[in-house]
């Protein structure tokens, strides 16, 4: 899971892009160690320390991972893409961001 995310973040450094996680782990301490060990640099919401926490419930998430792409205006533009399809779509939406932002 992480290699794709890591490469995406690296590739798009300096561009108006953000990877934001919503994490459903139960052990916060252990998770911090995983973040360090796996060099996970992007931010994640801590979703109450359980599967089906408040954020996942609000977004009706039933399967993990669930991935949404939002454009620069905050509009949901795609869902459940992976790998190269995900990357392609992100690049598409990056082109929509007005220059200078």
């Amino acid at each position, binding site marked *: 899971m992480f290699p794709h995310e890591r490469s995406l973040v690296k590739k798009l450094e300096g561009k108006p892009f953000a990877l934001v996680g919503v994490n459903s782990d*139960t052990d916060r301490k252990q998770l911090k160690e995983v973040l360090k060990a796996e060099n996970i640099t992007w931010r994640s919401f801590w979703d109450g320390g359980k599967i089906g926490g408040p954020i*996942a419930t609000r977004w009706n998430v039933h399967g993990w991972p669930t991935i949404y792409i939002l454009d620069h205006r905050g509009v949901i533009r795609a*869902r*459940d893409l992976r790998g190269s399809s995900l990357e392609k779509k992100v690049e598409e939406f990056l082109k929509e961001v007005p220059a200078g932002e």
Partner: protein
Amino acid sequence: MWYTGAVLVLLLGAAANDAPPKAADKKEPSYLDEFQKIKKEMDKLQESLNKEFTAAKTEKERDALIGKATRLMKEKGEPLADKAVALVRPHAADKEAVEVLAWVLNYEPASPAANTAADLLAKYHLKDPRTLDTVSRFTHAPMPWTDKLLRTLADADLPRGQKVRALLGLAESTKSRMELPGMLQGLDQATLQIVEERYGKKYLDELRAADPAKLEKEAVRLYKEAAQKYGSEKYGDATVAEVVERTLFELENLRIGKKAPDIEGEDIDGKKFKLSDYKGKVIVLDFWGNW
């Protein structure tokens, strides 16, 4: 077949006593034995494809193998499913037939044989829990026979808990059909080709041609029907009313084209932040877990 033996004994009366005692017990290969052979053939096919897949060393090799596997499964799998249905048809009302019919749905869900199998389950085996269990597995990837069977189950004289599952399953299936065209559009060419081969371009084109607004309306109607009829019933660790509320919220707010609701919370280090902090950027929002 054993019927014939027993009837013969009755008809022949005393004469039957002269008949070799094994006559009534003589077992001809039953359709179930024949089915086991078909099952074995299918298992062997899958096994050999799995072996090739695990032996593949690169992603490119694996992608190529998925294509091959999909084609082979259709070429060899569909005739096996046809065979199974032809075999079971004269015995469709038997309890033992359910295993065969469920197998067809599980292994060749996109085949014409599956449509027949679903019809037979609807006709003879609505009360068998395996019918609901099997069709429930397809609510996120509905097949041509899925909704019809779910509706029949939802309306049938079944225990309440099963009717709830069937009705919610139908709502979910309708929602999935609404979402499928969008999902298909997001696939890369190679994957799309595979999906089209597996499920048939005709069926996918039908899904794509459906009116999403109409499907959304229908899905919402079904969810509301479920909440109205069964709101207080338990469903997993929530009530039907809660599940419906969440799904209606999702349908209303979390669809492609909708402005995402904001998220306020803490990060792993306990610092507060919001999703809207990243406004102006393209965001990949990733629900994940390390388990």
